[in-house]
């Protein structure tokens, strides 16, 4: 298998990089807890371009989920600036910029798969016909065609998670935020879903933020790997992946892949030696 030259991307993405999708400058977030203030994020600088696949990796407590939640306007930073598509995260949310996928599929047990995917569409006020069309389209996109009338408990964990991805895709958000979406699944299912996410990313051209604590997962998926460390949560390294966008599973045996994995591991270790 021939691997493309590092850093080369011939798909015109560079042109649209002029306006970053996510831009954080000196971001700080301090939680006030019963045990006193906790610095969840410290001086975070980050730029995410359109169409990037960004992974956030680090041990628990490093603030990777918190950073993702800040981007989605689920948490509000206490210092610094954060813009999404040039707007505040709250404004971006009102413009339906985000699809969010949690570790648990979080499907409503009382709704069918199609009913679950329809939920955000109902809330956003799409008309009936449009809802049906979109549900059909995203079901196909995540390879769940024909499962629309099933209830969540009738599906395996991997299929449920695919349904929750379909739900996040249904309303054409251009940013897909995924918080350890495959953390609860076994490795074989995980590999398969990782491949599918890459395919999805290639087909839809979305910007993806992906939280994980698996080094191979981060390296396999990302164009940009953000390595974070805890106490206080901060970024220790940002790696622009030289891997091509087209990534078969066996790319994981290539020299580049191993080199990047090594650098990620070094970054994680450096963060840990601090405490």
């Amino acid at each position: 298998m021939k691997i493309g030259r590092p850093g080369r991307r011939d798909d015109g993405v560079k042109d649209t990089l002029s306006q970053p999708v996510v831009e954080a400058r000196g971001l700080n977030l301090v939680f006030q807890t019963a045990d006193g203030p906790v610095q969840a994020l410290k001086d975070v600088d980050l730029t995410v371009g359109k169409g990037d696949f960004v992974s956030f990796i680090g041990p628990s407590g490093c603030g990777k989920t918190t950073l993702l939640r800040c981007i989605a306007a689920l948490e509000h930073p206490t210092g610094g600036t954060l813009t999404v598509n040039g707007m505040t995260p709250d404004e971006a949310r009102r413009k339906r910029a985000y699809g969010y996928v949690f570790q648990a599929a979080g499907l409503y047990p009382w709704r069918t798969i199609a009913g679950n995917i329809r939920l955000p569409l109902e809330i956003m006020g799409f008309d009936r016909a449009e809802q049906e069309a979109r549900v059909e389209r995203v079901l196909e996109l995540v390879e769940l065609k024909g499962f629309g009338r099933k209830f969540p408990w009738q599906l395996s964990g991997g299929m449920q998670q695919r349904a929750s991805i379909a739900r996040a895709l249904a309303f054409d958000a251009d940013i897909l935020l995924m918080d350890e979406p495959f953390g609860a699944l076994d490795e074989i299912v995980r590999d398969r879903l990782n491949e599918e996410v890459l395919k999805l990313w290639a087909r839809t051209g979305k910007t993806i933020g992906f939280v994980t604590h698996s080094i191979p997962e981060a390296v396999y998926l990302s164009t940009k790997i953000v390595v974070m460390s805890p106490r206080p949560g901060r970024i220790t390294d940002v790696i622009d992946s030289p891997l091509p966008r087209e990534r078969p599973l066996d790319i994981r045996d290539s020299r580049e892949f191993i080199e990047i994995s090594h650098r990620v591991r070094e970054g994680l270790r450096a963060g840990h030696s601090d405490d």
Partner: protein
Amino acid sequence: MRRAAPVLVVLLGLIALWYAASVWMNATWVYDQAARAGESPTLMEVIPQTMAQERPLLPPPHQVASRLWEGLAGQAITSKRSLVYHGFVTFRGTMAGFALGIVLGVGLAMAIVRFRVMDMSVMPWAIISQTVPIVAIAPMILVVSNQLGIQGREVPKAIIASYLSFFPVLVSMVKGLRAPDQMQLDLLKTWGASEGQTFRKLRLPASMPYFFASLKVAVAAALVGTIVGELPTGAVEGLGARMLLGSQYGEPLITWAALFASAILAGILILAVGLVERLANRRMGVRA
């Protein structure tokens, strides 16, 4: 059949115990009669006489059963002696109290979940309300509603029944409406859902299992409340009035028949609620 066997064994045991207790309690009267006549009967002579007394202390099962049957099927259902007639009066009161209790319980639960101040102010009073004995409050409600010019007993009975039945609905619904976890609420937030949408699409459906579980308790409580509402003097209709009548006129068979009629009514009501729950579950995709 295998599931019915243990139930039947327990039932037979209870009936045997009941017969033994009847013999023991009713024998006193037989011995008294015999002593007055200067006789001393053997136990074997006493037992048959404990089984068919006019006014037994504890009527044996077959006497209660025959009186119950007579009350249910022995007369026109419009007759004032028909237990079907009195059962229907009680049923009507129960349904009114049940409905009122649901409205009250769900309404208060919604307010408590939505407003912190309601949680702090209403919830303690709801709990205190249940520590006051209903038999003490029932006559007061009757007097007050009479004073307000409300004719008949239907309204005060419904209020008394709802006083008992709103509480289980309230407690369950507060828990049910708070059942959705943070992740599900966050998800709705990322979609920009309004508070009303969060309630309709998530909180309300998530509370349904809690709601139906509470209905079974609430319907039984409404029945008890209705019967208590029929007890205070002056009531002429309903199973509660029959029970009081029996004890006032020294006719224990009337009381016992009414007691069992209300047990049958309670069974029917709980079965009906269970059926509604099953239908709702099927619609909501609960695993069969």
